[in-house]
């Protein structure tokens, strides 16, 4: 029995050796590790990005390739300057045409000499705080998009870099008072800025901008309500996207950072265009308008022409202000 067992073992061993000898050269030729390996083009087609594992602490560096940076580049270098250029230059052109054809919107009934409080000290403080921040934010922001093409050739690399560095600091730090201002504006003027039927009538009659019509309006007319919502919604969007950019990669990946920059810049250039219109109508565009945010008191005749319903309300409550200041907080209601 022992010899039979040995024979079986031997026969089995020989068979195995034979099999191995036959299989070995064949398998050596078939080895192609690339056949089953990950492939760059395939991965890019599937996800438009390649991500893997890294052994260093910076886990973001696990993104090996993100060619969508190219689309972002296209946006930043071509799309955004176009949107911004058309919006801002277009707005300035519109205003110039308007100013040249219509001129300043005059106070048609003249000054009455009697004034009424339109914005109290706190309201004006919030307005000017937000406005100052906005102007600096706008200039430093536009510098990022247009500075390299427009300003750099004029002042040279070193000076432009120095200025841009300070502009960046200003942009980052002034975002805080600006955001606070937007929040306060939202809360303090929300009462007077809910769109209603008066605004439809106001808009139908061209808001008094076309012709010499003076459609009735509450404390805020249709145009001002529009500005209010642009500030609240636009301000909210730039603040949210701006903080995402300022605190990079806190819960955001590379795509969301690109998206934040896209949202931030588009909203910002449109915001700037809208504010140019707002500044125009509040200064040289309309006689008597600046006083509302300047001294806080407007002429009664001005109020009658532009905010008749509000004036009636105020008169019923307190009567005109003959040199004596009246609290205007109630006016917001």
């Amino acid at each position, binding site marked *: 029995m022992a010899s039979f067992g040995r024979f079986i073992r031997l026969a089995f061993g020989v068979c195995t050796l034979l099999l191995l000898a036959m299989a070995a050269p064949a398998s050596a030729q078939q080895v*192609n*590790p*690339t*056949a*089953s*390996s*990950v*492939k*760059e*083009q395939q*991965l890019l087609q599937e996800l438009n990005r*390649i*991500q*893997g*594992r*890294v*052994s*260093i*602490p*910076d886990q*973001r*560096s*696990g*993104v*090996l*390739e*993100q*060619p969508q*940076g*190219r689309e*972002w*580049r296209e946006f*930043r*270098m071509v799309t955004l300057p176009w949107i911004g250029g058309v919006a801002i230059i277009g707005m300035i052109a519109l205003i110039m045409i308007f100013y040249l054809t219509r001129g300043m919107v005059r106070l048609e009934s003249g000054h009455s000499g009697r004034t009424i409080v339109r914005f109290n000290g706190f309201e004006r403080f919030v307005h000017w705080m937000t406005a100052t921040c906005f102007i600096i934010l706008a200039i430093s922001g536009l*510098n*990022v*998009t247009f*500075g*390299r093409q427009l300003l*750099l050739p004029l002042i040279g*690399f*070193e000076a*432009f*870099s120095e200025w*841009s*560095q300070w502009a*960046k600091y200003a942009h*980052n730090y002034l975002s805080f008072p600006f955001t606070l201002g937007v929040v306060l504006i939202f809360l303090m003027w929300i009462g007077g800025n809910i769109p209603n039927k008066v605004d439809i009538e106001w808009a139908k009659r061209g808001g008094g901008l076309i012709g010499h019509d003076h459609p009735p309006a509450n404390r805020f007319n249709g145009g001002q309500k529009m500005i209010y919502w642009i500030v609240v919604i636009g301000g909210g969007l730039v603040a949210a996207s701006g903080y995402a*950019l*300022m*605190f*990079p*990669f*806190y819960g955001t990946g*590379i795509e969301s*950072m*690109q998206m934040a*920059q896209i949202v931030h810049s588009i909203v910002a250039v449109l915001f700037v265009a809208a504010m140019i219109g707002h500044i125009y109508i509040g200064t040289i565009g309309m006689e008597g308008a600046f006083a509302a945010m300047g001294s806080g008191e407007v002429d009664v005749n001005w109020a009658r022409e532009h905010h008749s319903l509000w004036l009636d309300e105020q008169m019923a409550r307190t009567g005109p202000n003959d040199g004596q200041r009246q609290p205007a907080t109630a006016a917001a209601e």
Partner: protein
Amino acid sequence: MARMKFLCDADRCIECNACVTACKNEHEVPWGINRRRVVTINDGKPGERSISMACMHCTDAPCAAVCPVNCFYTTADAVVLHSKDLCIGCGYCFYACPFGAPQYPKVGNFGSRGKMDKCTYCAGGPEADGSKEEYAKYGANRLAEGKLPLCAEMCSTKSLLAGDGEIIAQIYKERVMKRGYGSGAWGWKTAYREAIES
């Protein structure tokens, strides 16, 4: 002049991270910054590959295009470098870079970024070649000494190749021919708009 490129032969990379270490040591790269890293795809699964990646020194570099202060420049060897004196740390080059090369030291408040740092192809910066100032800002300038980037020079499996694009492409092609396979030059299509046919 040569057109300098990097090529990582993924079929040879064993993820030893020697290139990462060599780079950090050679240039005394600050803590938290990695100019080069090794990414492993499909880790632990069949077909896993590791690729050593740094700045690829792209043709028509996206970082240079989007920089708001125009701090990038390309050398005669087609190496993409930048000036840390001009950089304002805005982070735009990171959004545009297909390879995640730009790095920012965290300075001061919240996430505010310092001057960008990235692979210099061991070619320093705008300061005088081999000067102290250059070393402090950008690290060693091996190229000026006639040497190639250290990461590739000391790669144990010769997976990472650095040098003139045509020469390293030729080396890679010969390898592929001899062994009968190759998963391609990773990143070349994105960086140089060309692939090595094998």
